[in-house]
């Protein structure tokens, strides 16, 4: 019968990784390598933690187009798009791959960078302290996780809309985001009563903050259901 | 492997193929012949086309169908086929040959001489 099957989601994940193995290996290898490179250049192991966090954030932009690879393709991706998987199941895979799976693999990558850097004789610093900092950096601050998921869900949304002019869409989205943040902070400065307001309604702000990726993923699902794979 | 000649419809060529196999003795009377699907897959023809051939063969009493088992060569099929082909020869091929003979001025004596030799 039709319906929804988590097993199918699992199989889709397995097939996706089997089909794109090389791409993912390169993706995470790059994510591991750059912090190590910085550590080598500065001879300071503490930079690995900071760079790890930075790569975690940057990778969130790129994980969506890699995950949603089959929506772009000039007609050659027909086979994947006719695979008997419902849109809801596909969306489940997209959400999991750009949030939970990504966070786990990024953390693993971070620890790999750390281990590699630690193994280098000329890099100085306290490895234990660094590990703790890295762990804290990735999982200690829930705001960072949510922030990364806001970026990846936003990317998913962009990829759901814009099939062809992806880079332009990213630039536009980025510009809009910058404008929004600038406008918001500008408004907050002008309306000084905001400062008192925040203390009372901090929990509202936190809830809204956590709901943003949920809303973005849900909106992306709606877009995917309505859009066609027009080639 | 069959390659199809021009002119005759494919179902007709399958019909002729079955007749040839019966005449040659490859398919003996009262024995089971290949199913529609098997023959279709063997020669690369739409099974519905083969079915049409089989239906015509059946109505011409060359084969018969035993429900659930398959098609069998009818009794006396060989002589029957020869009879049909003889009729076709006398009504179609021979008159055409005669017309050609007249066109080429072949005399009856020349024909009789060749007929006796062969």
């Amino acid at each position, binding site marked *: 019968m039709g319906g929804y099957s988590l097993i*199918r989601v699992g199989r889709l994940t397995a097939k996706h990784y089997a089909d794109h193995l090389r791409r993912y290996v390169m993706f995470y290898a790059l994510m591991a390598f750059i912090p190590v490179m910085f550590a080598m250049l500065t001879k300071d192991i503490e930079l690995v933690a900071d760079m790890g966090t930075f790569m975690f954030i940057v990778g969130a932009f790129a994980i969506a187009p890699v995950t949603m690879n089959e929506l772009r393709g000039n007609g050659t991706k027909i086979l994947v798009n*006719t695979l*008997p998987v419902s849109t809801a199941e596909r969306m489940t895979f997209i959400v999991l791959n750009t949030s939970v799976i990504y966070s786990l693999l990024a953390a693993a990558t971070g620890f790999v960078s750390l281990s590699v850097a630690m193994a280098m004789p000329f890099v100085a610093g306290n490895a234990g302290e660094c590990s703790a900092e890295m762990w804290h950096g990735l999982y200690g601050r829930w705001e960072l996780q949510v922030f990364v998921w806001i970026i990846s869900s936003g990317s998913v949304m962009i990829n759901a809309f814009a099939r062809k002019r992806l880079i332009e869409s990213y630039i536009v989205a980025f510009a809009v985001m910058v404008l929004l943040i600038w406008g918001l902070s500008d408004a907050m400065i002008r309306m000084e009563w905001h400062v008192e307001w925040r203390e009372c309604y901090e929990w509202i702000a936190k809830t809204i903050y956590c709901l943003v990726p949920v809303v973005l993923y849900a909106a992306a699902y709606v877009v995917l259901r309505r859009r*066609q*794979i027009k080639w | 492997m069959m390659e199809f000649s*021009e002119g005759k419809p494919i179902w007709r060529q399958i019909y002729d193929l079955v007749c040839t196999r019966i005449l040659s003795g490859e398919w003996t009377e009262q024995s089971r012949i290949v199913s529609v699907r098997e023959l279709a*897959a063997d020669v690369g023809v739409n099974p*519905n086309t083969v079915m049409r051939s089989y239906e015509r063969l059946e109505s011409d009493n060359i084969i018969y169908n035993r429900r659930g088992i398959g098609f069998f060569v009818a009794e006396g099929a060989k002589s029957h086929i020869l009879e049909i082909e003889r009729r076709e020869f006398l009504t179609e091929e021979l008159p055409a040959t005669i017309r050609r003979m007249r066109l080429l001025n072949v005399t009856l004596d020349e024909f009789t001489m060749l007929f006796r030799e062969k």
Partner: protein
Amino acid sequence: MIDIKQLTFGYSSHRNVLTDITLSLDGGHIHGLLGCNGIGKSTLLKIICGLMRPTAGSVRVDGVDPSTRRVDLMQQMMIIPEEFSLPSVSLSSYARMTAPFYPQFSREQMDYYCREMMVDPAEKLHNMSMGQRKKAYIAFAMACNTRILLLDEPTNGLDIPSKSVFRRLLAGYADDDRCIVISTHQVNDIDSLLDNIVILDQTGVALSATTAEICSRLWFGAVDPAAAVYTERSVLGQIGVAPNTSGEDSRLDLELLFNAVTADRESIARLLK
């Protein structure tokens, strides 16, 4: 099985690729979809798959709209596109990852098709020639045993012996419960397989008839120019299409039929009524 009613589709809002197509493709037949380049045959197949939604009109496969992407319907539909990309793995690996999505897949059948078409399932797909890769995918696709099989230019890129093998395998695949649609220009490669012909042109469906109907109403070959609906010059002289007044059938010549329909659609349609 496939019911298309007044289907209209265009990639952009002001230009339609398909206009007012009404068509019925039943199971138990191998349908031929013919038409000039760019007429929209591939697009029609993609719409049947549910990859695109019509701008107007409807498509129903087994009563279901394929663009709803219902899994049970997709499990019964397989398309072999003209061009496709496969991951850089062997056919065996590809089958291992993809077959679980198709409940009726049979590994034995895939191996059989591979043996017949001389494809090595252990060889990496990217190391194969285009023709070999196509045969490999055909082997996999047919082994999925779906009720609906859509093929877009399947013999393109296949060498002559392979075309013969392909014909035999597809003839064996046909069943009362299966609907096979072949879209092609290479009519000579597959004409023995077809029993229903659909010709598309700019006005829509120029012809939709079974080969039996066509052969009983029309005569192909040497014709009397006065009685003929269409004639053309050939090596053998004047050949063409004429009303079939004899009791016999001639061999259906798809190229002649296509040219005749392109030249004079109404006369042919009238004769087939």
